């Protein structure tokens, strides 16, 4: 393999596109120094290589993860791609190279820099998704439940199953305004879609009443003598508060 110090792959930003970068690197026997989306920061002397997204190539690489590493690695790579980690593409690429070399034992290499950074990023993603399972707040508009979130990682794919399972007969929408995407669930099925704008009507009296009740409960249940806002914020960082009914 030729380790080219200036080579940069450019891809379309999709998981499929990324997997094609991996394919291309092996097909051309070269190791890129970075993998970016169009418009990313590229060094002055970089040798740029556009990688075309080919579904067949992506599929091949995706299957190879299961075959050469393990089934869990497939989910791991998909999750890693949803994280907000900087330079995630090149790190996942390096992780996959290690995976092809060591097999499933790559997960034991926790002290390796690449594996360490990726596992921490994935843990961070799962923690944020776990938090949001609790912190998502629905507002009911005439029978449709709508929620807005602003997560750092792309958590919607991890949230959709949980909420679809919890409210199977409801119609709900969770809108991620940072990544401009949404989960829409109806009794017939669940859909993950991109969404650039969400306009909502005013809320009705019943909704207002339940919001007031909730605020009252959230306030009353605290024990004054144990007042500890720092602990509260440790468990529930302020960045979540903007979208939570009790702090609105």
């Amino acid at each position, binding site marked *: 393999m030729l380790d080219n110090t200036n080579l940069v792959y450019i891809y379309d930003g999709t998981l499929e596109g990324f997997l094609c970068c991996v394919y291309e690197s092996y097909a051309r026997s070269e190791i890129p120094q970075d993998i970016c989306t169009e418009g990313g920061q590229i060094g002055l002397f970089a040798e740029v290589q556009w990688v075309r997204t080919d579904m067949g190539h992506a599929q091949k690489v995706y299957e190879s993860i299961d075959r050469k590493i393990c089934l869990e690695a497939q989910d791991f790579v998909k999750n890693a791609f949803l994280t907000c980690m900087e330079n995630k593409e090149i790190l996942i690429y390096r992780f996959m190279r290690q995976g092809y070399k060591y097999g499933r034992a790559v997960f034991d290499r926790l*002290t390796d820099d690449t594996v360490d950074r990726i596992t921490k990023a994935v843990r961070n993603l799962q923690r944020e998704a776990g938090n949001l399972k609790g912190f998502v707040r629905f507002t009911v508009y*005439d029978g449709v439940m709508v929620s807005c979130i602003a997560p750092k990682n792309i958590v919607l*794919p991890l949230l959709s199953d949980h909420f679809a399972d919890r409210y199977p007969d409801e119609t709900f929408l969770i809108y991620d305004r940072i990544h401009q995407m949404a989960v829409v669930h109806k009794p017939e099925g669940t859909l993950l879609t*991109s969404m*650039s704008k969400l306009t909502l009507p005013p809320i009705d*009296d*019943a909704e207002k009443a339940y919001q007031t*009740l909730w605020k009252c409960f959230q306030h009353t249940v605290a024990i004054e003598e144990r007042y500890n806002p720092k602990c509260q914020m440790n468990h529930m960082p302020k960045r979540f508060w903007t979208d939570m009914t009790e702090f609105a």
Partner: protein
Amino acid sequence: MGRFFFYPVSAFTRTYVLYYTDIKRTHVLYNSGRLQGREPAVDILEKLEILTDAAKYDVACTSSGVDRSGRQGKTGSAVACGICHSFAADGRCISLLKVLMTNQCVYDCKYCVNRSSRETPRAAFTPHELADLTMNFYRRNFIEGLFLSSAVMKNPDYTTERMIQSIELLRNEYRFNGYIHVKAIPGTDNALIQRMGLLADRMSVNIEFPSEMGLEKLAPQKKPEAIMRPMGLIRSGIEENTSDLVLYRHAPKFVPAGQSTQLIVGATPDSDRKILTLSEGLYDKYKLKRVFFSAYNPVVSDPLLPSILSAPPLLREHRLYQADWLMRFYGFSANEIVDDKNPNMNLAIDPKCSWALRHLEQFPVEVNRASYQRLLRVPGIGVQSARRIVQARRAGSLDFEGLRKLGVVLKRAKFFITCQGKVTEGVIIQPDTVLRGLLSKNDLKMLPAASGDQMSFTDLPEMARVMGGVPTSAFGYLPEERTNEYAGQYEFGIHI
């Protein structure tokens, strides 16, 4: 193709706008018309405030212990690890709608905010009000379920029947599939406990005081027998149910998330030893899932109780939880944490460090070879990092930098470990230096008069006396004269 690519972003090309009206036009109306758009009753806000305020001193509010996926036609699911939906201003997790059915009580327990002799606003939910509230909170993802307790209305049986009515309504009519935690009222008829257990996920009976004496003085209308009987009943119900489930897969589940209890800390002169051995017995004999500790919050002025001005003994409660964790996840037994000689924990230092300091002969531990159980005993290594050490050393031998990546707190662990036979540079393993290194800034802050630089290992027994002995009620230990007055009376713990 395409099925596995759950991240459909080609955000750069395929963006389209979905307006609210689009969903509304096509959505199927929520099938239970009864809930739809119905406004809550006018006085419900007042009731909620009264009955939340009356319930807030109960600490157990976890929604853990059972995994149950959702079902068509029902609302809700349960997740074994539990979900926190919010955090109150006191930093405690809000997971369940924690309210009382009513706060009108016929009992007059001295420590309790709802005792009959106290002048306070009283209210009661009707089963429908409570079910409406639960469903509407649940739909909006405010809560994980309901935590229903009650003051004793008329008698325990009558109270329990009211509670059963509410949860039956929730489960059967409102098709609620989320988490329900109910309190078993001491003295309730066995048959009612049975019925309740088939509707709830978790049940709990509060022991409140770790000794019979405490109960007798402070809650004379509650008898230890009345507390332990439902507890035993729930245990045997769970056991029978487990064997039924082996035979019949669809046998209804009895209290699938197990039972828990609560002990009040600092209202009576009971030692940590009594509290911890009782907890240990409850885990072993009654198979409890959790024992919760509640720092006594003086709400009432009474000669038998700590002064109304004293702060709740939060640090002691914190240390008890640490000890509880050691017993449940770290393989410690109660008498390793406290013993006859030191019946109370040293508040200045966490119980694991304290144990390690008393057992320096068992250290250092070589991280590359030590068993998982031995790793767990090292201060600064937790369950997660011990697991990661075991996993990571399969790939190669570990050094200190590697341990840091695995999440080991080297600040504490460095005194107790070697890596490839080496001790961290500059570390001197002597009791004095170790102690100084172990105390965190937080530990020091919580201690009013101690400063880390001036403390040494030889001070520890002295500190243990001062902190763990009987100085101020701020630490949850009653003043010395009060303890002497009770001397002997508290010798016998609750018989379990």
